């Protein structure tokens, strides 16, 4: 690919920058370690048609944990939940909200 020098100036297939992963709109479920054996689950990239506050309300009740919505400039609304709720969140998103499993990425160990 690099051998053709002329084409370097403009590559129509090149990504245009940071919006590369945005069209695919992955939903990331992450885990973070806190002090001790406590953890934090974050859900990032929830589609904008869903009301994250209402979802949080349901999640909190279902999982029996606290949590909140963090507004990030770049990443939008991020749901934070106490504890390792990754599997439960995944199940909730797929069954209750009807999101496809393909679009959800579960990170962490």
């Amino acid at each position, binding site marked *: *690919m*690099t051998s053709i020098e002329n084409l*370097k100036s403009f*590559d129509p297939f*090149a*990504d245009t920058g940071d919006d*590369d*992963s945005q069209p695919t709109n992955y939903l*990331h479920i*992450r*885990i*973070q*370690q*806190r*002090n001790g*054996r406590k953890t*934090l689950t*974050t859900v*990032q990239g929830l589609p904008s048609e869903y009301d994250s506050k209402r979802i949080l309300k349901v999640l909190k009740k279902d999982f029996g944990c606290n949590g909140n919505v*963090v507004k*990030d400039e770049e*990443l939008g609304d*991020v749901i*934070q939940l106490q504890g390792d709720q990754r599997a439960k969140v995944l199940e909730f998103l797929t069954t209750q909200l009807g999101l496809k499993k393909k679009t959800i990425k579960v*990170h*962490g*160990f």
Partner: protein
Amino acid sequence: MSAEETTPTVEDISLDGLKKKKKSKTTSEPTTDSTDATGEDDLFGGLKKKKKKKSKDSAKEKTGTEELEDGIEDLGLGPKKKKSTKKKKADSSFDKELEKAGLSSTTAEAESSNTESTIATEVGLSYEDLLERFFTVLKTNNPELAGERSGVRLKIPPPIVAREPKKTIFSNVKDISQKLQRDPEHVIQYLFAELGTSGSIDGKEQLIIKGKFMQKQLEYVLKKYILEYVTCQTCRSINTKLVRENANRLYFMVCNSCGSTRSVSSIKTGFQAAVGRRKRTG
């Protein structure tokens, strides 16, 4: 089997061959008389081959009456039953073993060799014959193309983990990244992004990760890394290279064995929640 292939893990990658054999064994065994199989097993020393042998033998006993046809099959002339590559692999070992053992299956061997010669003389070279020859030649010259799965394709040393109260020391990152032909930095970056922590490398080239992690957990993350950034999705080989394209700043993975290229997403840390002591902003 296909399910196994779609979700390959490190174990699967290394143990692929064995698993297949086990399956074939268990499926075909009930129809055979067990005494025969075990008796023959004693004659053959090899551990891995034993399994192959068993399955093959049992297949033979199943069709006991049609010994002729079986003999042909054993020599790779009848491709009806199994996939070609698998069969060939089993066959070659089987043939070797036949020669070694010579005992129980001499009759079959003799007959089969007879039939082979007769076929060769009568029909000239049959398609199966040619196919067989092609595959043996291909296998001897470059086994990768013949779809040969060597028993152990990739052996990754398990992450060695020592733990301090709040840190995890991952001492053989460098080894592992070398085995995977990846920059240690890249591996570490991925680990940090996945685990949602940070860390550093100490003087002895050990990685120190903040937070407590078990060996199993790190292994799982490494597996994910391998799946995403190391294995070629076309040929499943791990003989790949990660190239950064300067023009568009994207990472591309070039497979050294099949030549395919695919773009891999860059490692993104994503949202990091504030953990620990909060900064006073107001």
